[in-house]
């Protein structure tokens, strides 16, 4: 792969959150939310990140954008390591990297009009001299953006509560586009929406990507959504990536036992197909990420576990057909 094609390169990213322990105890406890994640995204590509609640998807996105200061690892955006970047360098990098959040109710300031919300990134960067855009130009840009995401420009003086959930998500998307970024980190942008609105927003994401050549890190827990939007998919479990492959390939030929279980558990909206499906029902719940385990993190729930899985953690390695899998079924323990 040509190095310049890589827009985002994440290496061994770790995000551990300290938790309070007893007031005399010296031992410090951590939640290992993200515990060594490697992946990269090419320019113009969509990488889907899928997994269950608490597996570290959102934390990964926030650690990449440096909203959390990661515990360890490297995050290269266009070749620049964001972990080592100074405040002003980081500011510059953020122009290229914006986020869309899950909850369109909580992520828009209720006391700002939609026009102000969309213009805010431009105004902030204008103040610091990173963008050169006058008042009229900003205004015009806001109106253009609103029309582009499917909102009438006459709505720009309205407040968030006057919009429906889908419309609010459009405001969030317009805000993310305001600085013409190359990378957008989408953290469950459609999970709070109804089915008919969800497909509108998904199509909007696709159209915008083609029009502006955007690159997405797209987080969702709905496998069908991820399949529709992504070129490649990374499956996370308990703070680790267990499998990465091309979207079509992953769904046709899932390798990791967790991916297989996840795919078979997802309901398919067709009674005929449902009647013939055989589910792999996983036993137990996702364990808490409050300790680092020596073995495979999926060991307790895996139907194909072997003795070695308990004592050694499999690394993410490429198999012959281009999948990256972290499982000893596909490569020998060291």
């Amino acid at each position: 792969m040509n190095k310049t094609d890589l827009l985002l390169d994440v290496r061994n990213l770790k995000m551990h959150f300290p938790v309070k322990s007893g007031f005399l105890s010296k031992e410090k406890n951590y939640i290992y939310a993200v515990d060594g994640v490697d992946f990269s995204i090419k320019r113009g590509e969509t990488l889907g990140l899928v997994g269950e609640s608490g597996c570290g998807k959102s934390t990964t996105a926030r650690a990449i954008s440096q909203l959390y200061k990661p515990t360890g690892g490297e995050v290269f955006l266009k070749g620049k390591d964001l972990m080592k970047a100074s405040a002003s360098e980081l500011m510059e990098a953020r122009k290229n990297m914006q986020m869309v959040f899950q909850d369109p109710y909580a992520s828009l300031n209720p006391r700002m009009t939609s026009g102000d919300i969309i213009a805010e990134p431009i105004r902030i960067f204008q103040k610091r001299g990173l963008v050169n855009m006058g008042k009229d130009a900003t205004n015009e840009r806001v109106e253009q953006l609103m029309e582009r995401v499917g909102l009438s420009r006459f709505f720009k003086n309205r407040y968030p509560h006057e919009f429906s959930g889908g419309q609010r998500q459009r405001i969030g998307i317009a805000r993310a586009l305001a600085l013409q970024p190359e990378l957008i980190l989408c953290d469950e942008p459609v999970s709070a929406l109804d089915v008919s609105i969800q497909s509108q927003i998904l199509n909007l994401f696709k159209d915008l990507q083609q029009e502006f050549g955007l690159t997405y890190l797209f987080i969702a827990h709905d496998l069908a959504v991820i399949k529709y939007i992504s070129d490649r998919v990374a499956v996370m479990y308990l703070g680790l990536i267990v499998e990465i492959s091309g979207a079509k390939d992953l769904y046709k030929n899932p390798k990791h036992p967790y991916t297989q279980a996840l795919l078979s558990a997802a309901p398919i909206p067709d009674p005929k197909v449902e009647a013939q499906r055989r589910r792999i029902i996983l036993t137990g719940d996702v364990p808490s990420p409050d300790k680092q385990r020596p073995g495979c993190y999926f060991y307790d729930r895996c139907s194909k576990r072997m003795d070695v899985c308990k004592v050694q953690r499999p690394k993410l390695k490429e198999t012959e057909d281009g999948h990256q899998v972290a499982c000893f079924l596909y490569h020998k323990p060291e």
Partner: protein
Amino acid sequence: MTNEVILQVKDLRTYFTVDEGLVKAVDGVSFDLHKGETLGIVGESGSGKSVTNLSIINLIPMPPGKIAGGQVLFHGKDLLTLPQAEIRQIRGNKISMIFQDPMTSLNPFLKVSTQMIETIVLHQKLDKDAAKQKAIEMLKLAGIPAPEKRIDQYPHQFSGGMRQRVMIAMSLSCNPEILIADEPTSALDVTIQAQILEIMQELTKRLGTAVILITHSLGVVAGMCDTLCVMYAGRIVERGPTDVIFENPKHPYTQGLIRSVPRLDMENSQRLYSIQGQPPNVIDLPDCCPFYPRCEKAMDICKKKYPTTANFEQGRAVSCWLYSGAKDE
């Protein structure tokens, strides 16, 4: 599933008075529930799914709510006009419920045992020890490991999936005839959802319980339900056997809904279909078809009058002028 109808909802209307006007949350909903049947109600947020079911068990807060009309017949008795004391005998006993959020529907201050025993003692005339045995047995059936130990724990000591199992165990502990499950798995992850749905399906089949399953997920409906009601803006727009509806949806809304869900099992290289526009604001809805602004097949009459219901074979019913226009005009 037999032909014996155990619950009949006839032209149910539940309205709410709010500052902005009158919200017709449920406006003329009718369906029959047969013994042992699993009936799915799908629709988007605000379509009236939950209000329908809260009305059935008479849990609508009044005011601002008001039952403006209709009947809910359970063994010939109208639940809407029954005195409180009598409906309490039915609620949680003959008809029980599972709600979406298992954390808020369990009392965090009481042990699981206390909450389960309370229900059983109240409805089944058992003494406390026998009730506890029954509770443990139900928890075991719901797939909770070491139920003898777990029963004396508090709700916060259970995970989300486990709490929902407790809810299932609790709701089935009095052998209800009807179980109303309001989005029972929406707050859960897919792997946990699969576990819970399996448990629910297995237990209700074994006990012969009829289920009303409310959900927004077409996937869940496809796997679980015998019959299906599709709701839009407070009314049922299409009703019939699940497999027939999925194979040949008649109402434009149902058609759009099925086409706009991305599919796991298909190559979706082409663009996803989407229904244009926004769901309607249900405050002071005019008496037209509420779907017409978003409908690709809208006609003039759709703007003037709500369509009458056209009946088809296999108990299908569709409310759309495409099918009922010819007969009436």
